[in-house]
């Protein structure tokens, strides 16, 4: 991993060496990659076959495979499939093609085709992928790289800062952010953030309504008690003050428990949703806001039922038993 101050925001580093190579009399773009990093990065790739494991095993783009007659249209036969959505899963899936030839000569050397990437519409359709060390040797460029793809998947990632930090660390390399990808990712994050805000608002409204109905129920249950208190000389203001203190204490505890439960739930479930390593961070501001929100929502929702309770006629309240 890159040794930069923002290294904890970087989820993946995928070095590449690119070069043209002759295959069956054609010039094809060959990329040397670290397959683990590359397949983690390119989660949208669907591979018929398997991930290359040995030195002379290749992953072939769809257009190249077609041109080299490595594949032909499928006629109902199932091809083993590796899906890279989230994690490496393998299983049976139906592809539009099947691999009919799994050996090619690359720069005069015999290679095994481990898998074919189904059509993506991207540059990988016209490429062949081999292991980085083998391609460096094949192209006679030991220890050389053409580019490094760095992925920083986090909300509000400081992309500009990460770019400048990498530039400082590798001064001879040209480091630039893939703006389109950054923008698309940022838009997705924004959309998700807005959606989360709407969901939170709805949950908040439902919560407030539930507190309101619970307090109404509680007041009805305690009609006799309130009537007795009024009968023995408690003022309306005493009843309101007493019930509001009770609600405030319950709301404070509720806010505190809600914050702790939310923190625990996100800590437990986030690793299943996030693509980056989740770092547990204690944010005092969030705690204060959550507890204050619990207090405010609890007291506002309870205010009307409490005022209504204080207005109960004591004789009616006592007689209601």
């Amino acid at each position: 991993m890159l040794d930069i101050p923002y290294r904890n925001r970087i989820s993946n580093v995928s070095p590449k060496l690119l070069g043209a190579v002759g295959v069956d009399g054609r010039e094809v773009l060959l990329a040397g990659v670290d397959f683990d990093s590359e397949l983690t990065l390119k989660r949208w790739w669907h591979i018929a076959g398997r991930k290359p494991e040995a030195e002379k095993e290749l992953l072939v783009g769809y257009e190249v495979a077609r041109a080299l007659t490595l594949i032909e249209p499928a006629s109902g036969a199932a091809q083993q499939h590796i899906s890279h959505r989230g994690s490496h899963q393998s299983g049976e899936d139906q592809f539009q093609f099947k691999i009919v030839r799994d050996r090619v000569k690359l720069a005069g050397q015999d290679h095994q085709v481990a898998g074919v990437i189904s059509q993506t519409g991207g540059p990988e359709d016209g490429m062949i992928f081999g292991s980085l060390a083998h391609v460096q040797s094949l192209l006679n460029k030991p220890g050389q790289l053409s580019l490094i793809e760095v992925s920083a998947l986090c909300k509000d990632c400081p992309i500009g800062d990460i770019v400048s930090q990498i530039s400082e660390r590798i001064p001879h390399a040209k480091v630039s952010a893939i703006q389109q990808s950054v923008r698309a990712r940022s838009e997705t994050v924004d959309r998700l953030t807005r959606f989360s805000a709407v969901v939170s608002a709805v949950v908040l409204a439902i919560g407030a309504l539930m507190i309101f109905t619970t307090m109404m129920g509680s007041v009805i249950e305690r009609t006799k008690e309130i009537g007795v208190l009024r009968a023995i000389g408690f003022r309306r203001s005493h009843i309101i003050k007493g019930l509001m203190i009770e609600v405030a204490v319950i709301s404070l505890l509720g806010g505190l428990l809600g914050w702790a439960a939310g923190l625990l739930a996100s800590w437990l479930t986030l690793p299943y949703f996030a693509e980056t390593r989740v770092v547990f961070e204690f944010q005092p501001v969030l705690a204060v806001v959550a507890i204050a929100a619990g207090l405010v929502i609890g007291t506002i929702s309870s205010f009307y039922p409490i005022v209504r309770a204080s207005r109960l006629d004591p004789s009616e309240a006592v007689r209601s038993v």
Partner: protein
Amino acid sequence: MPFVAIEKITKVYEANGHSPIVRVLSDINVEIAEGEFVCLMGPSGSGKSTLLTIVGAMNHPTEGRVLVDDIDVYGLADERRADFRREYLGFVFQQHHLMPYLNTLENAMLPLATKNLRAREKRDRAMSVLEKVGLADKRSRLPNQLSGGEQGRLAIARAIVNEPPLILADEPTGSLDTKTGREVMEVFLEMNAQGQTVFMVSHNPENSALAHRIINIVDGRIG
């Protein structure tokens, strides 16, 4: 001048969707002297309890007025009327209406909760009335750990802890057996002997025989 003056009290419950107009009390006039023990008797539905809650500053009469110590009870604003209840009245309910989650001492202290007294003083006063009604040794028990008679005595302790000049009791022995009923009545007599005015609703002739005066009410009118 009487300590309690009930003047031309009429109570009418307005008709609602299901019930017609109900005239519960009609032109009631009663005077009670300070230190008197008065028993209000009458059959069920005659308006006894309604009259008691009207004297207890809890139920606004349709017509007439109630004067206690020359204070026009219903001329007071709502919050002042609550103060009046706290300073002048001790109410004993038929069902006692004790707070089930408070122990004996805390129930007895309840009317002092809004008083500007030190906690120690509140506790001492509550212990003093619990001793008076014979419950000092049961101060830590919850109401459901007390017998019916003890609950009745605790209700009286709560009513007198503020040392109110007027005690109002709505059939305080109604839910008790004869023996415990007598125990409770003895406490009332003791309070009355110490100068407190007692106005009690009962249809038990044994209880009414202990009062200085019996007022009969039938169909909302003094008989």
